[in-house]
C-alpha cells in the first residue's frame, strides 16, 4: 500500500512541476505572502517576534491557492478520461486518494519552506520566538492539509477544474468563516454548552490557538478530522462514480 501511495505521490508531485503549475502557485504564494506581510500586515510597525504579520494572512492566502493546486487532481482525470486507466491499474482506491492528497500537501510544505528567508531575516534583526514560529508553521501545515483534503474531495465531484476551484474556495470560505453561534441561538442551547460547541467547531478558534504558539490535542484532532473525513468522502465519491 505504501509503495502504491509513493508511486502516485511521485507521479502527481512531478506533474505539478511538469505543468509549471507549481512555479505559478509558488510565485503567487510568495508574492502574496510578502505583500500582505509588508504592506497590509505592517511588518515594520508590529511586534514580530512570532512573525505575526506573516501568519496573520496565511489562512486567507492558502484558502485561495490550495484549491488551485487540487482542482485538477481528479477533475483532469475525468476530463481526459484517464480515470478509467488509473483505476484499472493494480492500485487500491485509498492509495490513489492518499497519494494525490499527499502530493498536494507536499507542495504546500514546499510553499511554507520557501517563506523561511523572512524568518531568517527577522531572526537576524530582532530576538524571535523561534518555538512559537515553529508552532505557527506546524499550524499552517495542518491547516493546509485539511484544505488540500477538502480541495481533493471537491475536485472528485467535478469534471471541470474551474468549477472545482470555485467550489473549493466557496466551501473553504464557509468552513473558515461560519460561526455556529446562530445554530445554537436558534435552538436556544444553554450559554456554556453553546460556547463549547461553537469553539470546538470553529476553524478560526483552532487556527488562532495554533498561531499563538499553543498546541492542544483538540486543535490537532480538529484539523486531522477534517482531513480524514474529506479524504473518506473523496474515496466514496470515486467509488460511487465508478458505479
Amino acid at each position, binding site marked *: 500500500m505504501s509503495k502504491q501511495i509513493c508511486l502516485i505521490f511521485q507521479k502527481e508531485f512531478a506533474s505539478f*512541476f511538469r505543468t509549471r503549475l*507549481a*512555479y505559478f502557485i*509558488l*510565485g503567487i504564494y*510568495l*508574492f502574496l505572502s*510578502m*505583500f500582505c506581510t*509588508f*504592506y497590509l500586515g*505592517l*511588518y*515594520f*510597525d*508590529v*511586534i514580530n*517576534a*512570532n512573525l*505575526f504579520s506573516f501568519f*496573520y494572512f496565511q489562512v486567507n492566502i492558502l484558502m485561495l491557492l490550495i484549491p488551485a493546486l487540487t482542482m485538477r487532481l481528479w477533475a483532469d482525470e475525468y476530463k481526459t478520461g484517464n480515470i478509467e486507466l488509473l483505476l484499472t491499474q493494480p492500485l487500491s482506491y485509498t492509495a490513489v486518494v492518499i497519494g494525490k492528497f499527499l502530493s498536494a500537501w507536499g507542495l504546500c510544505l514546499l510553499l511554507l519552506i*520557501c517563506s523561511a*528567508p*523572512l524568518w531568517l*531575516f*527577522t531572526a537576524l*534583526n*530582532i*530576538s*524571535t*520566538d*523561534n*518555538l*512559537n514560529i*515553529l508552532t505557527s508553521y506546524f499550524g499552517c501545515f495542518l491547516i493546509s492539509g485539511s484544505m488540500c483534503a477538502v480541495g481533493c474531495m471537491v475536485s472528485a465531484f467535478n469534471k471541470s477544474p474551474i468549477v472545482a476551484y470555485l467550489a473549493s474556495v466557496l466551501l473553504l470560505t464557509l468552513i473558515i468563516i461560519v460561526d455556529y453561534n446562530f445554530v445554537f441561538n436558534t435552538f436556544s442551547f444553554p*450559554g*456554556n454548552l453553546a*460556547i*463549547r*460547541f461553537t*469553539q*470546538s*467547531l470553529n476553524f478560526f478558534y483552532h487556527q*488562532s*490557538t495554533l498561531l*499563538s*504558539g*499553543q*498546541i*492542544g*490535542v*483538540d486543535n490537532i*484532532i*480538529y484539523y486531522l*478530522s*477534517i482531513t480524514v*473525513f474529506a479524504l*473518506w*468522502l473523496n474515496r*466514496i465519491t470515486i467509488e460511487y462514480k465508478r458505479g
Partner: protein
Amino acid sequence: MQKSTIQKLQKSFIICLFSLLLLASFILINTTSGALFSGSRLDLTSDRLNTLSQRTEEIISGINKPIHVKLYLSSQISRQNPVLAQYAQTVIRLFNRYRDKSRHLVNIEILDPKPYSNIETEAKTSGLIPLPISENEKLYFGAVFSDNNGHTYTIAGFSPERFNYLENDISRAISHLLMPKRKTIGIASDIPLMNRGFMRAEKAQNWTFINLLSKDYNIVPISLTEAEIPNVDALMVVATGKLPSLFIYALDQYILRGGRLLLLVDPASEIKKRLYPGIPDEDPNLEALLDNIGTHYLSAQVLGDKELAVGTRFAISKDAEPQSRLYYPWIRINARHINPQSPLTAGLDAIFVATPGALTLKNEDGHTTESLLTTSKNTLTTTANLAKFGDKADVLRYMDEKQQAFSVAALSEGEYHTIFARNPLENSTYSKHILPFLSTSVAPAQIIVISDTDILDTKNWADGTNISDFAKDDYNLRPITNNFDFIQRSIDFLSGNLSALNIAEKKYTGSRQTLAEIFYNGEMKNHKENYQKISSSLEDNQRKLDTINIMLKSNSAFGTAKTLGEIDALKNKILEEQTGLDKIEYQIKSAITQKEHVIALMHTVLIPIFILLLIAGIHFWFSARSRRQARRINNE
C-alpha cells in the same frame, strides 16, 4: 421503475446517510475533544505568553459565581491599526484562557460599539475611553466586568503599552468582583495629593496613584487636624515635613489599636520642591514615632548610593555644559536589594526613589521589623536642606561616604507602647469626643514605612503617551519601575485584600520592539550627539523663558523693554531649535522609509524570483538526469 434506477437511488440514499453520519461523528469527535482537552495546552512560546501565573490560577479557582465580561472592541480597529489588532487577539486569547480555566464561570461577550449605536452609548456610560487613533470616529477597546449582584469593574482601555500588565489588570478586575466588600483607605498628606480645592486649578485633581487605587478601594481624605483616625481598613500617611502634634497623637493611638498604616516620610521631597519651590519646612517630628516601631529615621539626612544611582543631565558648575552623570540621591533599587521573601516585594524588579531618607531597623520585644528595600553598601549622605534648596552639583559635592547599607522601606508588625509619657490630651476638649488614651497596644498593628515620598510621583514609575501626574486611568501608562506595584501591594496587604496581593507585572524576555523602532534607534545613533545638544539647549531656553514668565506674573514692574527683548530672543531661539529637531527627525524617518522599501521589495520580488530560479534549476537537473538515464537504458 427500472431495477438499475432503484439500485442507484438506494446507493445515493446510503451515501447521503453515510455522509450525515460522518458529519455527526465529526461534530461529536470535536466537541468531545474540545471538552476534554481545551483546558490543557502546550504553551510553546519562549516566555509562556499563554500560561496564566500561579496567582491568577488561584484567583480563578476561587471564582464561585458567574462573572460576565463585556469586551468592547470596535471592528474598525483591525482595519485602522494593526498593532492594536494584534493586541486585540492577545487580549481575546487571554480572556478565553480565563473562561476555559474557570469552567466557563467567566463569560466573555465581544461587542462592537459601532458609532451612534446603543452599544457605543453603553460603552461610554460604563467609562470606556475612546482610543486616540481616529479623529473621525470613536473607537473603543476596553472591558466591563460584572457579577449577578450588579457590581462592576471597568478597564477603560487595553493598550499594548501595558502588555506586561494585561494579566495583572484582568486578574485584579476579577478579584475585585470576588471581594465581599469594597475596603476603605484613608489618606492623610501634607502635600496636595487629592482634589481638595487648591489654589491653582491644575493641582485640584487626584494624583495618578490615587486614581488607580480608587479603582479597587474607597479612598477617603483624612485631615491632619484629626485627633482620632476614623474607621478605615488601612491608612496611608504622606509626610514631607512637620505634622501637627495632634495628628501624631492620633497616629500613635491608631497604631496601638491595631491599625494598618502605610507611612511615607521624606527628608527632602522632590514633589514638594516642585510644588512649593523655595519654601522652607519646619523640622520634621516623626522620629519618635518611627523609633517606637523599630525604624530609626534620620530626618535631616538624605541618602545616596554610588552603586544604584541613576544618571541624569546637569552641569557640574555654573559655567560648564550639562552632561549626563550619575546623581547619587536618585536610586534605582534593583532585584538584588529587594526582599524576595516578603509577599510585599517578591518578584519586583526595580523601585525608583529620589532623595530618600535612611532607616536603620531594630527588633524589640513585642514587635518585629523586616527590611523590604535596601540600598547597597556604597552609600553616602548629605543634609536634607542641601537636597531641598541646593542644585545637583552642590549635593554631589557635599556628600559623605558611609559604606553602610540602609533600609528605605520596612515592615513592622506587633505590639507597641505609646510614645507619650502621659496622655497629652488629658483634660482637653478633645478627650470627651475621642476614644480613651492607650499606653500599650490592644491589638497587633502592621506598619509599612517608606522613607521617600517621590516613590509616588508618576514620572518616577511610568512612561507612556498620556503620561500625566493626574492620569485618571492606567490606560496608556507603561510602568518603567515597580513603584506603583509596591504601593498597591502594601495597600492590599494592609487592608487584608489578600486575593489581589502579589499579582504583578509578567516578565517577558522576548523582543517587544518593532523593527521600525530598531531602525530608528540605529539611525538615531548617527544624529545622537547633535540631537542631544539641541534638545538640551532647548530645555535650558524653555526653562529660562518659564522663569521670566513666572517673574513677570508675580512682578509686573519686572517687564522692562530689556526683559521683553530677552523673551523675544528666547522665543526665536526655541523656534529655531525645535525646527532643528524636526529636521533631524525628518532625516531619520526618510532614511528608515527608504530602508523599509528596499527590504519589502527584496522580500516581495527578488527573493521569490531567486527561489523560483533555484527550484527550476533543481527541476531541470532532475529532468536532465532522468533523460540521461532513459537514453542509457535505450542504448543498452
